């Protein structure tokens, strides 16, 4: 393992993506999962200082089972296989505890939520006929559908159920109705959408593709979905939201055999962050709080705040370990336009914020940097829309269009926004004129246009 030692050294600046590297990352996530099950699976976690960190045991038990299921696709690696076996045996008593059985028994509308870990353990060969019997009763009850769910949550229910009895599932080539109703089948709001919207997108994709075990047909073309995934990736990188960013990156290995330049770059950023921190961190792990805690309290806090992002890196590594799904060692440069990255970066104002993606960008060769110019355009467009610098947005679109980079959903949504603003301005001016004619009339609120727009 000489290579692994080198990779984790600060001397090596360009990590290489190979099977050993991905295997190491997946094993690292599985090792963290082992600690999570040991420390938190029984009672979850209560954070009296920050309730946002509270964690129900059912959630982490289900997510650990999901990690196991994803890891099973890489079980041909002995190190992974051994960890799956150990972790599965640790998880079984929690996945099939009295608490879970009672949940399935008393709340049939939530039965698949309580049974999720049981289902995936069964899929891995760890079956339990008694649990299945109760689950069947609950799944056949009158109240089984007595809970209103959004489409991606409906997809989750269908996905868990189909994994419970995979041979009985209907043709995998069909697109699920829930998938057609989900965000996978409609354009996301890439400029103002919420984090939860991206969350719905990434989860729906996992449920439809089934981690490539028995994937179903996507409700829209893969290229359109991946174009939106790139926009979501840009946002996650800029916001250092690696939890969601890792989920977004799953879109490539779960839907196709090639990684775009932007996706390869995104993977590189996340891997670099993981190498520097020792795990893929989330913002809710705070050093100040860690320094205030000791012993078991400290370890539990750390695991509760860090496990999810670590699991996401494990899921991503597992998917990338599948045949022909590995990210490229170098950023693909076909189609890169000379000097395009610098032209976009001329509009970028990092301010005091030093993003990790920027550090990684400056390590790239010129051609590699130009290959991700489309991603840079998305990042800079979003930043300027957030700042309401619409004049800069217009100039960016012009520059992007001149280089053939504006053929993206973010650029077209930004152009639509400028069109709407143009109409808004006309309406606002008309109202202002009317109000000025009336004695004491107040002017309408005006949109905060940036200095560039005011000049034009």
């Amino acid at each position: 393992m000489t290579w692994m030692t080198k990779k984790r050294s600060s001397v090596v600046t360009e990590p290489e993506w190979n099977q050993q590297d991905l295997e190491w990352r997946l094993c690292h996530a599985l090792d963290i999962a082992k600690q999570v099950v040991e420390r938190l699976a029984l009672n979850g976690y209560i954070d009296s200082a920050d309730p946002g960190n509270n964690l129900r045991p059912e959630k982490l038990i289900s997510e650990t089972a999901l990690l196991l299921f994803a890891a099973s696709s890489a079980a041909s690696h002995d190190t992974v296989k051994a960890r799956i076996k150990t972790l599965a045996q640790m998880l079984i008593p929690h996945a099939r505890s009295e608490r879970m059985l009672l949940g399935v028994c008393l709340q049939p509308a939530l039965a698949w939520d309580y049974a999720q870990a049981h289902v995936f353990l069964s899929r891995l060969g760890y079956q339990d006929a008694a649990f299945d019997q109760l689950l069947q009763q609950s799944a056949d009850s009158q109240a089984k559908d007595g809970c209103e769910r959004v489409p991606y949550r409906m997809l989750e229910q269908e996905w868990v159920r189909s994994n419970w009895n995979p041979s009985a599932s209907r043709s995998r080539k069909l697109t699920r109705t829930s998938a057609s109703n989900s965000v996978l089948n409609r354009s996301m709001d890439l400029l103002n959408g919420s984090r939860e919207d991206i969350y719905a997108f990434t989860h729906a994709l996992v449920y439809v593709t089934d981690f490539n075990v028995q994937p179903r047909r996507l409700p829209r073309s893969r290229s359109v979905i991946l174009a939106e995934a790139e926009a979501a990736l840009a946002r996650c990188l800029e916001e250092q939201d690696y939890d969601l960013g890792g989920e977004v990156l799953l879109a490539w290995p779960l839907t196709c055999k090639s990684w775009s330049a932007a996706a390869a770059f995104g993977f590189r950023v996340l891997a670099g962050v993981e190498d520097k921190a020792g795990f893929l961190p989330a913002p809710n792990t705070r050093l100040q709080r860690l320094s205030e805690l000791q012993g078991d309290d400290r370890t539990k806090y750390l695991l509760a705040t860090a496990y999810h992002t670590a699991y996401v890196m494990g899921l991503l590594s597992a998917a990338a370990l599948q045949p022909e799904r590995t990210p490229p060692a170098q950023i693909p440069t076909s189609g890169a336009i000379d000097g395009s990255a610098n032209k976009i970066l001329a509009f970028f104002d990092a301010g005091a914020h030093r993003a990790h993606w920027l550090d990684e960008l400056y390590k790239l060769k010129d051609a590699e940097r130009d290959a991700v110019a489309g991603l840079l355009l998305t990042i800079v467009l979003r930043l300027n829309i957030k700042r309401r610098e619409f004049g800069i947005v217009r100039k960016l679109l012009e520059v992007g269009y001149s280089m053939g980079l504006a053929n993206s959903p973010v650029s077209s949504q930004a152009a639509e926004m400028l069109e709407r603003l143009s109409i808004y301005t006309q309406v606002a001016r008309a109202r202002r004129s009317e109000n000025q004619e009336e004695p004491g009339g107040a002017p309408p609120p005006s949109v905060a246009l940036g200095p560039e727009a005011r000049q034009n």
Partner: protein
Amino acid sequence: MSNRVNHQEIVKRLLDAKVVDFSAIGKTFAEIGPSLALADEPWEGWCGTMRGFIRILVVNPGLPGVENLGALRGATGELQK
């Protein structure tokens, strides 16, 4: 990039000027809270959704950035391999 307002500065100036009397607000809530809790009006009325009560909103400040990566590595031995 110019013409920005510093919200923190404005908030600090308002607080320093004691524009808002938090003690008085708390006292008022304490006095009228029990009767409002039993009133026929919907709960939302208390929050000011439909009526002009004082609104106290905790606006999601968004995610903070992740901590310094090197410092995280140094402080999280449990997660290192």
